[in-house]
């Protein structure tokens, strides 16, 4: 008696390509996926609940652990929310340090995305090249903040430490170096036939679907929506820089891959200009009260993290802790489209599609 039955396959939580503790329950027919169900929460730490019992400065280290690949943007979003609600003016030098830190962080984050994506597709070497260059950024941010990943660098009203001597020069030297390396990345991977075979036309979705699923970041821009909060709702000092927002109309994995590399180029432009305009001296902290009390009311800010729109909502009843604090975590929202994309694809494409969404599990689980 011959019969066929669907196989239930657990991808993860212990799996090399899920980028953390992420589990996908897929039903497969041969190697074709008929149903996929993401299971999340293995890394849930209840950041939002914990924040309700913490003072605003104490919350900042917790945000480092959300999107641990670009902790600077997370630092910024909580500080920015508090500053907006309190109406604090930030000194220029602090703003420049923040922008430099965030953009370097964005480059580092996209480098990891690039390296691990190509590693997921089976090429081992590019991953190590990406990490070599990321290491230089990490070292620079380490000099700035004293930590390699969980920086805890920004404070309400400014930044914790001033740039050490010669730091600006090192950042300036890094820009041409990184541009040269990017060419090498394209030579090594972007034109490779095997690579193109695996990503071109894979995991395609339309503009409407992207908007319905509330995608953001490169995942949204890959469908042709030109939406980048640095341009469209300029925060900090982003209106002082000249940069483009790369978009693509393809909406497939290859488009997302290219957008991330192009965003590195754009971030390098910002870093270059920020280094040029960097004020020679000045305060790095605004005058803020010793104990930060946000005035009664609610506020929401959103900024552009490497993964998309990261938002912070605060409801304050005038105490030194927030009454309720909520983060809009872009990875979590970007992940929602995954079950839809996976149906009808084969197992090899699963990895390609999941990698192109570029999730960080710390952020998905909160």
């Amino acid at each position: 008696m011959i019969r066929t039955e669907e196989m239930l396959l657990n991808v993860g939580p212990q799996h090399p390509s899920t980028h953390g503790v992420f589990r996908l329950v897929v039903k497969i027919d041969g190697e074709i996926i008929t149903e996929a169900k993401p299971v999340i929460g293995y890394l849930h730490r209840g950041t939002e609940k914990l924040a309700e019992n913490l003072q605003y400065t104490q919350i900042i280290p917790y945000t480092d652990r959300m999107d641990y690949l670009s902790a600077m943007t997370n630092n910024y979003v909580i500080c920015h929310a508090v500053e907006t609600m309190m109406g604090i003016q930030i000194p220029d030098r602090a703003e420049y340090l923040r922008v430099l830190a965030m953009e370097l962080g964005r480059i580092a984050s996209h480098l990891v995305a690039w390296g691990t994506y190509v590693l997921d597709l089976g090429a081992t070497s590019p991953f190590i090249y990406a990490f070599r260059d990321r290491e230089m950024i990490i070292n620079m941010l380490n000099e700035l903040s004293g930590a390699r990943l969980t920086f805890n660098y920004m404070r309400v009203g400014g930044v914790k430490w001033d740039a050490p001597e010669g730091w600006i020069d090192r950042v300036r030297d890094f820009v041409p170096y990184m541009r040269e390396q990017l060419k090498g990345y394209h030579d090594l991977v972007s034109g490779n036939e095997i690579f193109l075979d695996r990503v071109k036309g894979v995991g395609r979705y339309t503009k409407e679907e992207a908007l319905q699923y509330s995608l953001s970041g490169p995942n949204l821009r890959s469908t042709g929506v030109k939406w980048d909060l640095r341009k469209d709702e300029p925060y900090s000092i982003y209106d002082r820089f000249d940069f483009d927002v790369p978009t693509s109309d393809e909406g497939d994995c290859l488009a997302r891959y290219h957008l991330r590399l192009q965003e590195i180029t754009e971030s390098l432009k910002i870093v270059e200009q920020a280094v040029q305009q960097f004020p020679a001296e000045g305060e790095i902290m605004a005058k803020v009260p010793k104990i930060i009390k946000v005035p009664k009311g609610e506020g929401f800010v959103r900024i552009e993290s490497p993964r998309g729109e990261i938002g912070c909502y605060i409801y304050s009843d005038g105490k030194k802790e927030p009454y309720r604090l909520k983060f809009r975590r872009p990875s979590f929202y970007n992940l929602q489209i995954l079950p839809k994309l996976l149906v009808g694809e084969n197992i090899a494409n699963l990895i390609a599609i999941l990698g192109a969404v570029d999730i960080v599990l710390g952020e998905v689980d909160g």
Partner: protein
Amino acid sequence: MIQDLLQSSPGLVNFGIFFLLGVILLLVVLGFVTYGILAERKVMGYMQLRHGPNQLGGRFGLLQTVADVLKLLLKEDVIPKAADRPLFILAPIIAFAPSFMVLATLPFTDKFQFADIGVGLLYYISISGLTVFGMLLGGWASNNKYALLGGMRAAAQMISYEIPLVMSVLGVILLAGSLNLNDIVMQQKHGWFILLQPIGFIVFFIASIAELNRTPFDLPESENELVAGYFVEYAGFRWAFFMLSEYVYVFGMSTLITVIFLGGWLAPFAFLSFIPGAVWFALKFCLVVFVYFWIRSTLPRFRVDKLMEFGWKVLLPIALANIFLTAVIKSLFF
């Protein structure tokens, strides 16, 4: 020398010598596996800005593989409860025995060849095809979903790529007029077959990577999708058997390419023939092995459906066209 032994009357002395030569070959192969693995790790290390093994056995990590093998020997022998026990035990042996059997017909020099049989090339290809049973059985017997997928992929891939592999050497066979590996080498006195059969060589080389399950054709064990593929449940020395057979095949396939395309032990130019054939053989052999390592550290992996398409729709037609072209040229000019 070995041929004389085979033809002489069976006696204890003759048997002893023959046995000893076999042991020598075994040691050579195991030595290759030991240092081939180290070389691969070193080559990949330098290509990836790392050092590779550099702790055990001096600064070049000369004893690293030995230590790894010892570790594997000492590991607990785990057989999953739900596995099909006899098949699970049998699978690594089935995978690994043919890898040593193929070595018999390979001519390393004009003297050092164990079985100079008429259909040497055919023997190699047919015996090496047996290994896929081991992989498939291993994947099936593990009773693991990832292993099953890996085993199925292995079977599909090996069968698909065996056909272009055979078809691509037909051009060489046409030119050499023999299936005997010794004859094929002697036919290359005036020009290696890589020059006369460039298309055949490229097809053969690509198909051979697929046969060896190496990147970019390492789908059966694709780490990022299937974790480890068909041997995901294997541990300790059973796992080592799979690994051993893989590297012995690298040895065998590199030897085969050297023999049929690179002129075996022959010197590239006549005036260089004072250097012994074994040296030439070793040089060419190392070159082929290096290219395998190089490709591994550079390329990403094929997707499984594209792999099939590539094998059937690209490699096979090219190989067939090559046979046709060779036949036409041979009948017109030779």
